């Protein structure tokens, strides 16, 4: 069953074309890796998939069970794109609570459990402004995963993570896939790509090309 369908999607910014005629069907329960050099448009493609950007031409169709008439942005999507700006004066846990309160689907227990999964210490008083790159990356992944979404869209999820943290993250994502979830991610790490992805695509001179 197709959850996200991109048909002949192109995206142009101020006359500069970033993506051209991209067609891709994201099927439920499968995982997709998108690779490509920096600035090739991977993040733009992910934003198009979750309606944070609109295509210049072509269509992005999302399964109505996620995108009802009253919504602009799909439900049950866990998204981490571009390392979102957190509230620097709060702890990581408080940032996560702020986000969790919006949908009210998970509480402190689930947040804590997800923090444990990624190896981010609970109850720590460190404010996010003092977080390292790796800790911020973990925070981004935790907020995307903590509400047990059906679809995960992650931009460079393994960046800034050390070896053991990458293994933890891979394990969590594998669990998500085992539970029937869908995963779309970008990465430069070949091992994680081959480990997690059912299909691998690359963006080459604005076009999306299937690699394997």
């Amino acid at each position, binding site marked *: 069953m197709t959850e996200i369908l991109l048909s002949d999607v192109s995206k142009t910014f101020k006359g500069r074309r970033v993506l051209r005629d991209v067609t891709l069907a994201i099927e439920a329960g499968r995982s997709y890796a998108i690779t490509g050099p920096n600035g090739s448009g991977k993040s733009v493609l992910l934003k198009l998939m979750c309606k944070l950007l*609109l295509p210049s031409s072509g269509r992005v169709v999302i399964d109505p069970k996620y995108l009802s008439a009253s919504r*602009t*942005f799909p439900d049950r999507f866990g998204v981490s*794109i571009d390392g*979102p700006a*957190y509230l620097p004066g709060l702890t990581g846990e408080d940032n996560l609570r702020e*986000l969790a309160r919006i949908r009210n689907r998970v509480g402190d227990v689930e947040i804590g459990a997800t923090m444990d999964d990624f190896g981010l210490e609970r109850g720590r008083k460190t404010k996010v402004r003092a977080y390292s790159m790796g800790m911020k990356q973990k925070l981004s992944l935790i907020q995307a995963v903590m509400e047990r979404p059906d679809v995960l869209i992650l931009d460079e999820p393994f960046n800034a993570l050390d070896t053991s943290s990458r293994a933890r993250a891979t394990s969590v994502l594998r669990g998500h896939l085992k539970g029937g979830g869908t995963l779309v991610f970008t990465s430069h790490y070949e091992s994680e790509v081959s480990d997690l992805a059912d299909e691998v695509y690359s963006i080459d001179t604005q076009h999306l090309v299937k690699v394997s």
Partner: protein
Amino acid sequence: MNPRYLLLLSAVTGLVVVLATLIAPGSSDGGSTALGGPNGMPLNDLTWIFVAGVCPIALAMASAGHGRGMLWLRLMRHGSRPRWLAAELSRDARRLVTIVGVWVILILGLTAIRARGPHTGVEFYQLCVNLPLQMILCLTLAFAITRSRAPALAKLAVAAVLAVGAAVPLATWPWNPLTAGALARTQLGFGAILASSLLVIACEALAITIAIVSSLEFPAIPSTKGVPQ
């Protein structure tokens, strides 16, 4: 800024006003009090600027900072921009009510302490009606302006409005709302006090509207046609 610090700031602000009221020249003079008399006028205006200016701006900056944090993640979770905006405004309103609530409690406490002294009616009017109303208006102004897409211009506009707000009563002392209120109470009764309050509020609302219309690119909601990252 953490809301707890804002509450602390609000409480400190209230204490500054209390102390200023108690130690200001003329506070024991039956004809002029720190809040109402000419001798205490500059101090009155300074405390007014602090209460109605610094506190709301700090609150608004915190609100704007909070609004920017995790913006897209919030948008995604709310599902649509109207819902996101409604949630943002609702949060701001709750903060505003909390801070004004703290302020009113301090005012009532101060009024009770000073009930033994003269001119409590005028002070009560000034503290319970005039200042909170002015503060709410300035909060509204600061909230709106700090959410603009030109923060430097917005801050300048806030400063200008506050400066004008302070300069006008300084330059036209006989028409200072408190003086007008005191005179009206003495000579015309509380109906005239209400009228003078409404006049002050109307003037401030006009100034705020002009400031907003002239400086805003409102609201600072993220565009779905952003730039590539």
